[in-house]
């Protein structure tokens, strides 16, 4: 699996990252090696195997439809770098 510039830039977009030139060259090298190593999985016979996304077959973890008090707005906004006391604010941008 070769990671070309186009794919790397696509992955930057998907990951919402902008790499520096040196990061780019380092990561594309790394990805090449890592993915080459991972390609060994392709040789594994998984016909008729169903996917496992949880370690155990438990089901139905529900909560009842009951309302509890929300967190105070002060706490919700506390960690936001920019807010006006009511709402989190991101600087003006083009829509």
């Amino acid at each position, binding site marked *: 699996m070769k990671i070309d510039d186009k794919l790397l830039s696509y992955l930057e977009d*998907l990951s*919402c990252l902008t790499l520096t030139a040196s990061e780019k060259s380092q990561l594309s090298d790394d990805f090449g090696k890592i993915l080459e190593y991972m390609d060994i999985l392709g040789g594994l016979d998984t016909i008729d195997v169903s*996917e496992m*996304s*949880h370690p155990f077959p*438990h*089901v*139905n*973890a*529900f*909560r*009842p*439809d*009951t*309302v*509890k008090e*929300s*967190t105070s*707005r002060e706490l*919700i*906004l506390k*960690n936001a770098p920019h807010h*006006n006391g*009511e*709402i*989190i*604010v*991101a*600087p*003006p*941008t083009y*829509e």
Partner: protein
Amino acid sequence: MSKTAWETVIGLEVHAELLTGSKIFCSCATSFGDAPNTLVCPICSGMPGTLPKLNQSVVEYAIRLGLVLNCEITKNCKFDRKNYFYPDLPKAYQVSQLYSPICRNGYLEIETEAGQKIIRISEIHMEEDAGKLIHDKRDGTLMDFNRCGTPLLEIVTEPDFENEVEVLDFLEKMREILVYLNICDGKMQEGSLRCDINLSVKKEGAELGVRTEMKNLNSFKAVARAIGDEALRQTQILSRGGFIVQETRRWDDDNGLSYAMRSKENAQDYRYFPEPDLLPLNISEAWLSEIKKSLPELAHEKRSRYQNDHGITPKDTFALTEDKSLADLFDDVIKNGADPQESAHLICGEIKRLLNTAGLAPKELRIDAKKLAQLVNLVIKGEINRSAYKETVEAVFNFDVCPLEYIETKGLRMQNDDNLIKKAAAYVLEENPGAVSDYRSGKDKALGFLIGQTMKELKGTGNPGAVKKVLLDYFEA
């Protein structure tokens, strides 16, 4: 230019906000119009380390809708994450269902000029709503997370619609079902019922064309306008030999046109994968049959019962079921032993008029069905006449009076005593010689005047039939 006509092919994605008390994955209240960020907790605002826990009612509501829309219920369904970056989505992924939605392969019948038509429903899935952004030129983007985590059902149809009339009938029926199931309030303007349109055009007999997706449709009217506009836009492009770009477009209802959203929003790769923080569901037969049993009677079922069992006219059955509150009132009134046809007249006529006058929505109506049933029976039995009936209904509507007390106090009980009527009639005849001679000379209208005067003399409590009979007896004697 080819002579074959262009055909429009439309599919819908309908989003219904559910009427649960709490959000889908946390215990914050679902609500509309609260102060920003007051219905928020660490879970729905996406704080690090938080985890979702599924509201059981959301699953039940989805199953209710699925059963009504003739869907297969997926016994083993699960949730997936849909990943994208946008400030209204604090986790940067929406928990939704891609790989195994809870309901599949259903349908809804609509009415068209050519008769009934089946619209196939490919799936219904559960998901969480995003927050709201306010874009302000001065302050920038403002983020309100109150709506984050509000439960949604997304209903996806096959591309079975040919025009806006079919779409609107479908949406109207869908709205009616959601409201009757008591799972969504169906308000498009408030955004609790939303609809995206997938539309393409093609030449008759040709393969499906490239489609666009239209968003931001906030009313039935906007849906109709957008379909018309988009079909025309695509047809014009194709007629000129151009081609349609697969894209998401945003409808601007103020200007009556749509524009393509930024290309970035179009080329999305959502990287769906199974949500590891939620366990899969297993919907047992027992649970399913419990939900089946608890399904309420729907509007179309009510209409056929009203017509077939109670002899209500088609016009009145539609008027009654137009709003669930009115249908519920009707059912309550007849449950209290009132004559169905008379009750239907009462609700579709006087009650609706009173609501209009008071500026109330049917949902806001608070009226004692027992009292109405009592009044209906009184008028049917001839114990009060129509005008007394109307007056008492109004008093019950406005002041919740006790009908019998009111009638007695106001002396509204119908006057059937011949002697009293004769006395009143004799007085009227004597006072109106002109009218008497008019009637004798063939002017039938004069009789109406004399009846009216006699009724007035009886303070409105006379039995109009009896009054007429007394007067006719006088003239024929």
